């Protein structure tokens, strides 16, 4: 219970900071909308509905992936400013609670952007899912968590690096490949109904397993990362 309270304290703080600054959400939203708009201009979504449906799962995750990297890169900036991170390092609360609080805050930010992006995406690409649309309620949070948990961790890993903006995508994208594959396949499957429900469920299970494994690893390793010199 105490641990959970620490996580909530960190989460509340990050939400409050974002509410005051709105740096992460604004940046992400702008970037995501730009990606969606550019792709919709690259081909005619209404002229080729089948092709659109086939590639839209990938386009959606490309928009989310690239836009979330802009926010994740900033995730620890506020902690470095004014040496607040040193105060965090000296606090007796568990280091992993700081990580979890921040990862949850990032999840909320990205989900907010997705909630705004989804209707725009559907209108731009003239989409209506042919498969079980409710499965998106599983795929989106699981996929987003996979990106966010690793992104928050690798952003912390690159805190003391000179080229940390460059380092994050270099580390995050290869490690997230199994999750990205599952996200895109599941999303495309739901949109096109080309693959059967069992296979979609397998992708979702893979995503869930990925989330559990990497969340555990990140929690276990975060203290070492935080106190590294």
């Amino acid at each position, binding site marked *: 219970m105490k641990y959970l309270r*620490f996580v909530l304290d960190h989460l509340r703080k990050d939400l409050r900071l974002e509410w005051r600054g709105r740096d992460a959400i604004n940046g992400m939203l702008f970037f995501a909308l730009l990606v969606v708009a550019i792709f919709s201009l690259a081909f005619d979504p209404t002229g080729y509905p089948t092709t659109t449906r086939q590639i839209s799962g990938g386009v959606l995750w490309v928009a989310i992936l690239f836009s979330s990297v802009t926010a994740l890169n900033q995730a620890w900036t506020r902690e470095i400013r004014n040496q607040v991170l040193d105060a965090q390092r000296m606090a007796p609360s568990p280091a992993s609670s700081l990580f979890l609080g921040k990862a949850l805050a990032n999840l909320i930010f990205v989900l907010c952007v997705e909630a705004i992006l989804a209707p725009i995406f559907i209108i731009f690409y003239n989409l209506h899912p042919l498969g079980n649309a409710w499965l998106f309620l599983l795929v989106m949070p699981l996929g987003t968590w996979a990106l966010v948990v690793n992104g928050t961790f690798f952003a912390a890993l690159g805190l003391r690096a000179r080229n940390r903006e460059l380092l994050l995508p270099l580390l995050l994208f290869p490690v997230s490949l199994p999750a990205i594959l599952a996200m895109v396949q599941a999303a495309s499957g739901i949109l096109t109904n080309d693959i059967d429900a069992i296979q979609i469920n397998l992708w979702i299970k893979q995503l869930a397993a990925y989330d559990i494994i990497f969340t555990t690893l990140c929690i276990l390793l975060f203290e070492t990362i935080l106190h590294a010199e």
Partner: protein
Amino acid sequence: MQTKASPSGSAALPVAAAELTSVSRVYGTFAALRNVSASFSAGSCTVILGENGAGKSTLLRVLAGLISPTRGSVSIFGDSPQKNRGRIAYMSHAPMLYEELTALENLTYFASLHRDDQCACVGSPEMALRAVGLDPALTRTVSQYSQGMRQRASLARVLQTDPEVLLLDEPFSNLDVASAHQMVELLADFRTWPHHSGHARTILLTTHQAHLAEPLAETTLTMLNGQIANTKHRTSEPAA
């Protein structure tokens, strides 16, 4: 050079709150600390003087457990600083506060992180702010504070955690003379506050303004090129 900084100078040394044994800290080719040994007894107040780059801040950061010594060992109450996180508080040059939050929001947040530690800090951010002369009801965020106000808010942040060992890096910088004197009085008062562990409170502070810290300085260490060049106890003459 090895120095024992004990305020009393008596034969029977009191419990060491902090101890450095042959500590060196090297950054690349630059040695910020060179074979420093010192013992700071519980309840003592030590002022560390020295030029820029003499190693004062590094010494405090090593004691705070924020950096590890390249060689030698550090202990706080006989254990590593990392195992005594709730007992040490460190105030840096930077305010260590979130710019987008008010002072009260900052302090409430940091107090919540000490909840596990059975300290009396929860619920005391308002008191800590009043003690340093800031209004807890101030709705301005820290980004709109003057340097002096930030410094005071930063001091409130460390005091509210009810530390046994207080490490202050240049606490008087950015303060006007009157505010600096108020801070000295507050720190002198803070030393008399009882702690639930029964230990007396220990203060180590670095400054360039030795005259301001004079009332607090039971022991004065002067650092030069990463070493303790001189130790002066209030009751004794400075060592050669």
